[in-house]
């Protein structure tokens, strides 16, 4: 029996098609379930309340209510402001993370100095601590400094990324020492080496880290919830919640419209840069 099937497979007729078909069927249906929420979200954002609450479900609306939903969404809440905040905050955070992490990673990877092992120990310790743990003291500190409810409150705590330091150090270690010797002989300072030699070589790792940092910080809800009260400072997740609260429940059309707008940037970024995202995650996991 097995031999016969093997023979059939050899002539490329029955078995492979069956198997491929099954594979596609399973993956396609599971995949559909995965993106179903997105489809649902967009679908509802296009419908009128009557259709939303009707017991029948159609994918596309009978009457297009898109304009009303979206304009209401934008009118009720400063959606663009939320997106802009997302951009400002994540960009600022990543910038600071890079500025602090890269030199430190270089020093840890390539220089020999007293305190190196201890510093690396601190980095490793930091990796063990989930971001929610330092929350309370950080909050207290910011409160004492009067920095609550400001961009600083959003940006400062994340400005150091021990994960970034760790990742870049691992990467830097693979850079050949001779490259550095040559740079030093050419008169480059250590600082110069970081930005002109190490950075270009470690671009892939930096990009990967950047993407992860972007996604994490854009979607972070926990910390902004704690430190931000004012609407004009809200990051996208917080903006969504403000919207939800303001709407008191049943205005689903505009709510979904708002959700679509908030989700769109990252989804588009992902679709455009898929390879980088997935490669980035893989690379950091290999650690």
């Amino acid at each position, binding site marked *: 029996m097995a031999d016969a099937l093997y023979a059939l497979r050899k002539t490329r007729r029955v078995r492979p098609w069956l198997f491929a078909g099954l594979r596609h069927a399973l993956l396609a249906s599971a995949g559909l379930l995965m993106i179903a929420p997105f489809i649902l979200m967009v679908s509802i954002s296009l419908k009128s309340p009557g259709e939303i609450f009707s017991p029948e479900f159609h994918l596309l609306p009978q009457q297009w209510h898109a304009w009303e939903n979206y304009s209401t969404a934008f009118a009720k809440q400063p959606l663009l402001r939320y997106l802009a905040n997302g951009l400002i905050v994540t960009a600022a955070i990543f910038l600071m993370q890079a500025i602090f992490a890269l030199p430190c990673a270089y020093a840890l990877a390539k220089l020999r100095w007293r305190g190196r092992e201890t510093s690396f120990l601190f980095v490793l310790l930091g990796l*063990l601590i989930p971001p929610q743990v330092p929350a309370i003291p950080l909050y207290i500190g910011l409160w004492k400094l009067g920095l609550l409810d400001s961009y600083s409150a959003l940006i400062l705590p994340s400005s150091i990324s021990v994960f970034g330091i760790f990742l870049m150090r691992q990467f830097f270690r693979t850079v050949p020492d001779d490259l550095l010797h040559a740079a030093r002989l050419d008169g480059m300072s250590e600082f110069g080496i970081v930005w002109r030699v190490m950075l270009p070589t470690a671009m892939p790792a930096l990009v990967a880290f950047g993407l992860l940092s972007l996604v994490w910080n854009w979607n972070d809800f926990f910390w902004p919830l704690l430190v931000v009260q004012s609407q004009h400072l809200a990051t996208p997740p917080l903006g969504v919640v403000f919207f939800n609260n303001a709407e008191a429940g049943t205005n689903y059309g505009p709510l979904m419209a*708002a959700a679509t707008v908030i989700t769109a940037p990252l989804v588009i970024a992902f679709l455009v840069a898929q390879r980088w995202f997935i490669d980035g995650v893989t690379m950091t996991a290999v650690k």
Partner: protein
Amino acid sequence: MRSDSPLRHNPGSAQGLQRPGAQAEQWAAWLLAGPAVVLTWLMLLGPAAGVILLSLTDWTFGAPELNWIGLDNYREMWGDTAFWQSLRNTLAYVAFTVPTSVALGLAVALLIESGSSLKGLYRALFFLPVTSTLLAMALVFQFAFHPTVGIVNLALGALGLPTTDWLKNPDTALFSLGVIGIWQAVGLNMVLFLAGLKAIPKDLYEAAAIDGADSGWERFRRVTWPMLGPALVFVVTITAIRSFQVFDTVAVLTEGGPNKATSVLLYQMVQEGFSFLRSAYAAALTCIFLAFVLLLTWAQNRLLDRRAHYG
């Protein structure tokens, strides 16, 4: 030059400083690494230590005084039914989401790798939820779970299966949140498993085929599963730690209810610390949270070490 100096072996010692340029290297290193180390202490390690210390006091937010009360907060926690409820809920959530999302992630990765067409498309489909803003999608799920017009109940009803108000029913609320968590985690697990699968050398499968293990089950059992061991441990730990951190969906969809059925550790911590202003008690809760995460990481290290000696 530097690289073959015999004093290389002891960089931290006084001897090491006698290397030419060692002093300059020392200063350069401190300048480069210093700010990062300082920030790490300022933003991460310091506050973490602070939390532990705070948990030993009775401070409430804004109070003028702070007293040391030792382990009293923990004693209170021991007798606090709300705490045990939170802990139970969190553990139940983890127990539900981790095996499911890991198994699904593995299954999807295996299916994708078993063929050659449309791999990129499927990868994108499954990874998309990982990048989405969870809260926005949570609202979509909220609507989907709506008792009368939500698509879940409409579909179940059409099939004649029982329906309920998923998020308001205390028996199903946590489970529903778990579904959302799984939805987001599968893609990440899939990517990690794909990397693990790619790393398995093809000739192992060929050797197995010649040895007689050429059916799907035997290949999986003799080659795929053992070779995925380390990846598996890694994925389980990552997923478990992320699960432990569940907060967003609880805060927005159920607010810990109904009747604390979905109150999880972090949620209770935020409530105690920021709604009830009992900072010290919240700090104690944070410490318990940290302890569990450290436990998971330690377990991962032990498991990985044991298997590490087959490079």
